[in-house]
């Protein structure tokens, strides 16, 4: 009794917000990180540790960054060359931000959009990373109880960033693998009509996290048209803008609205950050870029809660206004991303593992549907636990990204070196060959019992056959049994 009272007291002592789990950290997305934290892979010290493939970081061009920093001591206010600016920078807390910082960021945003569009430095508002930007945008555009449409699958952090302290809801717009997870107007209409809360906007991430796909021009136009027609906001998170590679092209919503003369720009907002394109998540540089003057004003006032350190603004201003460096950086980054992506996908192809065709992002969307015992999220979690604890790869289960269909996993590739990638692929190879062996055994057993197998290569999730052991789902008996590549 006493314990209950104490707990109840405790409960009342804090806000509902603090006492609840709106922070979203009880998701499998974070559980995998915890497994990694407890046993992190190191090629020499911990070769059996968990390889982190659940954190979308861009670590491929740190050497270029480092070189620039060492060659530009004036960009630091701590060096002999830069210390004369120390006091001016140290007292600068104006929430407009250093003008040279905003100009440099605007230029960088233009470059990452192939200079097809201009950005006005006066519309650039700082925030505590894209995390802070999303929360601020939600505070500005919606009241508690309102909702934003979000195409699934989406970045797990949105559950916290957009909802926790704002009281805003997320209304999923279901996308299906059958059409490559494209966002359709039908799906948008259905989500909008069936929403049980007032819908205030549509949030897209382009390029997509977790899919790595980019939206084409027609699709973007249809999204602008959809939101304009409904009088709701369109928020485009373009945090992965410069991570396109190969033939993939990134088209910003900023470009598309130039082609729609009667577009209501008061409804258009962009969230951006340097965490992915530049690989600088530690510096906490988030940007809100809104075409709505009032939103710019108010978001700027709210930015007091998460300004970018002036020391960092100063460094970034210098770095991003070095145009030669920026051009070279973007070029090399794309090349290295393409290489690492190819390494992973070639490896997976060789093992018959499917993945969604995409040309951006720091991850791939891997298809393991045919390894599921049953087409359920319970099965997915079971498989995921095997992958994390036995295969020792931290990947993110699609369920944590609100994917409609079980069996998909986000696998990050840009946060590791070549050797680690090799190790990861080797572990996957061992894992799949174990599956094949088990599957062959099973096949022989089943054959003895004179059961018939479906011969189709394309799996049917309506198949209700269950198996007595392991986590295998039925597939063609043709040896060596390939895992089906997702048909896009």
């Amino acid at each position, binding site marked *: 009794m006493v314990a209950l009272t104490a707990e109840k007291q*405790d409960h009342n*002592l*804090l*806000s*509902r917000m*603090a006492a609840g789990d709106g*922070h979203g950290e009880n998701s499998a997305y974070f559980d995998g990180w915890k497994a990694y934290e407890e046993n992190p892979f190191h090629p020499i010290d911990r070769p059996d540790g968990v390889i982190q493939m659940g954190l979308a*970081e861009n*670590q491929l061009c*740190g050497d270029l*960054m*480092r070189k620039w*920093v*060492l060659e530009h001591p004036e960009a*630091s206010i*701590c*060096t*002999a060359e*830069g*210390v004369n600016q*120390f*006091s001016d*920078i*140290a*007292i*600068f*807390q104006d929430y407009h931000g250093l003008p040279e910082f905003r100009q440099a960021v605007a230029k960088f945003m233009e470059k990452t959009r192939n200079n097809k569009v201009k950005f006005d430095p006066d519309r650039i508002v700082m925030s*505590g*990373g894209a*995390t*802070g930007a999303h*929360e601020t945008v939600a*505070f*500005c*555009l919606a*009241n508690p109880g309102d909702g934003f449409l979000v195409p699934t699958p989406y970045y797990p952090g949105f559950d*916290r*960033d957009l909802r926790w*302290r704002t009281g805003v809801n997320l209304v999923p717009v279901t996308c299906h693998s059958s059409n490559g997870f494209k966002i359709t107007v039908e799906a948008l209409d259905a989500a909008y009509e069936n929403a049980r809360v007032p819908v205030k906007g549509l949030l897209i991430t382009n390029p997509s996290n977790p899919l790595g796909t980019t939206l084409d021009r027609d699709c973007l136009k249809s999204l602008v048209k959809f939101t304009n027609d409904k*009088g709701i*906001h369109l928020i485009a998170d373009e945090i992965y803008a410069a991570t396109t590679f190969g033939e993939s092209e990134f088209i910003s919503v900023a470009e598309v609205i130039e082609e729609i003369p009667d577009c209501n720009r*008061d*409804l258009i907002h962009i969230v951006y950050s340097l965490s992915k394109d530049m*690989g600088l998540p*530690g*510096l*906490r540089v988030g940007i809100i870029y809104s075409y709505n003057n*009032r939103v710019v004003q*108010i978001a700027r*006032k*709210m930015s*007091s*809660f*998460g*300004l*970018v*350190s*002036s*020391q*960092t603004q100063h460094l970034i201003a210098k770095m991003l206004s070095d145009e030669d460096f920026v051009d070279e950086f973007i070029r090399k980054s794309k090349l290295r991303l393409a290489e690492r992506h190819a390494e992973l996908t070639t490896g997976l192809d060789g093992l018959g593992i499917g993945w969604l065709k995409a040309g951006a992002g720091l991850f791939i969307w891997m298809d393991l549907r045919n390894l599921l015992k049953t087409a359920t999220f319970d099965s997915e979690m079971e498989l995921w636990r095997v992958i994390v604890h036995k295969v020792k790869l931290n990947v993110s289960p699609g369920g944590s990204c609100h994917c409609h269909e079980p069996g998909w996993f986000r696998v990050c590739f840009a946060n590791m070196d070549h050797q680690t990638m090799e190790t990861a692929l080797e572990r996957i190879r061992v894992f799949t060959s174990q599956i094949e062996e088990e599957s062959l055994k099973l096949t022989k057993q089943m054959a003895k019992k004179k059961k018939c197998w479906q011969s189709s290569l394309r799996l049917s999730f309506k198949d209700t056959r269950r198996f007595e052991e392991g986590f295998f789902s039925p597939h063609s008996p043709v040896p060596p049994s390939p895992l089906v590549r997702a048909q896009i």
Partner: protein
Amino acid sequence: MLSSKVINESHGQDSSYFLGWQEYEKNPFHETLNPSGIVQMGLAENQLSFDLIESWLDDHPEVLGLKKNEESVFKHLALFQDYHGLPAFKDAMAKFMEKIRGSKVKFNANKMVLTAGSTSANETLMFCLANPGDAFLIPAPYYPGFDRDLKWRTGVEIVPIHCVSSNGYKITKEALEDAYERAHKLNLNVKGVLITNPSNPLGTSTTRGELDLLLTFTSAKKIHMVSDEIYSGTVFDSPEFTSVLEVAKDKNMDLDEKIHVVYSLSKDLGLPGFRVGLIYSNNEKVVSAATKMSSFGLISSQTQHLLANLLSDERFTTKYLEVNRKRLRERRDRLVSGLKKAGIGCLKSNGGLFCWVDLRHLLKSNTFEAEHSLWTKIVCEVGLNISPGSSCHSDEPGWFRVCFANMSDQTLEVAMDRVHGFVEAMVMNTNHGKQKRTMWDSRRRSLINKWVSKLSSVQCESER
């Protein structure tokens, strides 16, 4: 189309506190380039001791190129976004805070949550401790920014605890009970008391007796005690600074889960641009929730690295605190004596970056309207941006917060000359003919009208 937070303009930035800054921005004083501009005395910044930090940086080149033991730490910092913060930085902050408190209190880095400035710390604490519609009691006058930081996005209310000049603004038991009652009459659930110690805008530190009274009160009511100790390192006179945690220890409440401290390096070290704040709490759940919330405003790893190095140099921090206090006291003394020459008194202060100045005798009437009128004149005609007491929720008209630590000695001289000139002119106006008064009255009336009718802007006629 937009949220009510946007439409209702509840950000609190229409206060004269911020409008004065805007006037300054339009016409900022510069010794050589704009000698007739407005002197900024409305921004509590500490610019007196940068030379100490700069010379430390000169002596420590290894921090500069982001090299540590000859290896570049840049990559590590660039990727470091763990909301638990750089351990070396938290340890250094703990040591620094202990030093400021004369080692009478120990700080445990695990009870610390790093935030982007105390602006973010205060808001985050409200999100953790109170629901929308709950209230915190705050001794008035208080920092105008609280109206935004504590209330805007959280939906929490502030109920002022009335403190008056007649007893030196001491917090009394009666005032606390009265505030608590008033909150209940407004159907507000009181969740805690928040104090700033030393006080902004008063510049006085909270006495041991007051802290004891506060803890007794909050303990009895089972509510939170939040102490914003952002100015703790600026106490330059007796009584010496006493932290709420010290008194809690005396009362065997040092592990009490309802006591929380907010801190920042913006004032003591004069580094507001770096956005370094923190919450310190014994309450594990608060630390856990606040840490997660800090994702919305983490401290740049680059900054954590610099400060970890700076603050772990104990010789430097000891010297800095001593020199900084000395310079603040000297500057305060000069302001006080300059004002005294003009027949103007201040509340006796022992810390902070400002004085609480008594201009009640210059008011035409004992009203806030008269205070506004006087303030407008001081900003637009005298050219000094100071903060009117009403913007700090003062109960009595005629008090103004005047900052002294954000300018050079020469600029302070200029400001004092202007004050003397202004007071003389007022005296002359009182003693000599109607003519000047008529001109004065009509200009003043037009200013009041403009002010009262359109609170979103102040229009200064360029007269000087």
